[in-house]
């Protein structure tokens, strides 16, 4: 047994990881169960920031991610969109990543058009699309949105869009929500939007696991709430569902909680592998000392 683990081929590890992810996906998919979630303070803060806004507030949703991180960020983007819909907020979608526009289209098609067809484009939500320039875009739109966004993603002039009437810059937004997979992302929104206008722009965000440690220094003053990876998304999703879910919740609104299953088993495998690797290391070292 010891020799087997000592010379363990990496393909066995790959197989174990595959099973640890695939089996929970299958079981959760079949039995429609999720693990109980206990929302912590950061997810609760995100929920409260959105929930405490008066109905019909203006919310800017910046989807700065692409299909590579959809698995981690897609569920929180879904939950953000659903929460805004339930609160009747006006949603202004933008993207600083080239493929962010497709992420917005996904949210619009899967949630708004599929489940809330009564919401009208241009009156309840608008997709302003992608603009090149990274933090340069943020720097301009904090003072003059129309300088860059002369049209929406469909090519309609912003002057002709009802919900764009009177919107000059993003300081007029009641809240900015950013879903971030890296650069440009939450860090740039904090540095170029919140920091110059701390009293006018409020920001909450959701980000990938590797990004979260880098964003903690901005909490709580510049960033009152943060959803870190699928765990944060799961906590936030459970809060949204507890208040607005009702009965017979569609599976797409429980995606974050469902993905916690594979994550749990994969994390346990990682712990097992680290312990096994260390046991082998210490046994070998002991044998080496004896020799």
């Amino acid at each position, binding site marked *: 047994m010891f020799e087997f683990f000592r010379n363990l081929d990496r393909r066995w590890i*790959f197989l174990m990881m595959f099973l640890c992810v695939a089996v929970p996906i299958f079981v959760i998919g079949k039995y429609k169960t999720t693990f109980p979630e206990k929302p912590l303070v950061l997810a609760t803060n995100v929920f409260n920031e959105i929930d405490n806004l008066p109905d019909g507030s203006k919310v800017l949703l910046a989807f700065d991610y692409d299909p590579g991180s959809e698995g981690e960020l897609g569920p929180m983007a879904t939950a953000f969109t659903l929460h805004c819909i339930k609160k009747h907020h006006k949603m202004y979608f933008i993207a600083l990543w080239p493929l962010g526009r497709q992420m917005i289209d996904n949210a619009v098609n899967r949630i708004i058009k599929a489940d809330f067809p009564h919401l009208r484009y241009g009156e309840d939500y608008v997709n302003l699309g992608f603009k090149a320039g990274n933090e340069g875009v943020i720097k301009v739109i904090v003072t003059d949105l129309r300088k860059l966004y002369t049209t929406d993603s469909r090519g309609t002039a912003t002057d002709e869009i009802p919900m764009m009437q009177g919107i000059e810059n993003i300081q007029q937004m009641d809240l900015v929500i950013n879903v971030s997979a890296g650069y440009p992302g939450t860090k740039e929104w904090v540095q170029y939007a919140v920091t110059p206008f701390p009293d006018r722009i409020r920001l909450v965000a959701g980000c990938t696991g590797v990004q979260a440690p880098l964003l*903690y220094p901005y909490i709580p003053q510049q960033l009152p709430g943060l959803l870190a990876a699928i765990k944060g998304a799961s906590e936030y999703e459970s809060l949204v569902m507890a208040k607005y879910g009702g009965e017979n919740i569609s599976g797409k609104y429980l995606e974050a909680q469902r993905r916690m299953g594979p994550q749990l088993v994969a*994390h346990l495998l990682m712990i097992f592998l680290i312990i096994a690797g260390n046991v082998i290391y210490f046994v070998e070292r002991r044998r080496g000392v004896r020799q």
Partner: protein
Amino acid sequence: MKRTAPLLIASIAGFVMIVAYFIPKTQTWGEDVSVWFDILAAIAFILGGGNLLRVQLKKISDRRPGWGYALITLIAFVVMLACGLLKIGSHPNEQYPAFAWSGTYNQTGTPFWWMYEYLIVPLQSTIFAMLAFYVASAAFRAFRAKNVEAILLLGTAFVILLGRTAAGVFLTDFIPSDVLIENPTFLQHLVSTLRLENLTVFLMDIFNTAGNRAIMIGIALGTASVSLKILLGVDRSYLGSGED
């Protein structure tokens, strides 16, 4: 002139941005410079495309190792670009049915949409998902408790790995939580912190934030000094060697 003009543009733009930040009356200058930056960033896509063509074509013509991948890159680039720019398969906008190109490039059913949905999305997701396999293999082979620092790292990893799942809550559920206590004493708060989910937050809030703040302040000071050198023309390395 070839080096002086870019140097002047960079220097003036940089100083305008600094002045605009501190003097409200000059704020519009800063906005104008930011717009120039955004226009340049959009043009950079064209330059990037041109550079991609040049590098890949050179690789193919020289028959360098891996030239087949370069060919695939080129074909993918050209096909995707053509489908997007020419809006192949796209229906005209309902408002302007007489104009063939009035539709959007990524309408459902267009070749562009098809390639995005069935090539880009699965490829990117696959590459990202493969990380899990390599991280697991690396954890088994390289994560050794060789010294005190490594032991601390290991302990932190265990806490975070467990604390970010339902297992963390389950394993330390026997420890009383202070959430439901109205005014918890210091001891009650301390005991509650030992719950894995709270310990994770504690590690991230205290040790991680302190370390990251120190790094960020260091980076900020370094960035300020390098920026000043660039604006004053002391550091000209960003202009390149000048040899073509």
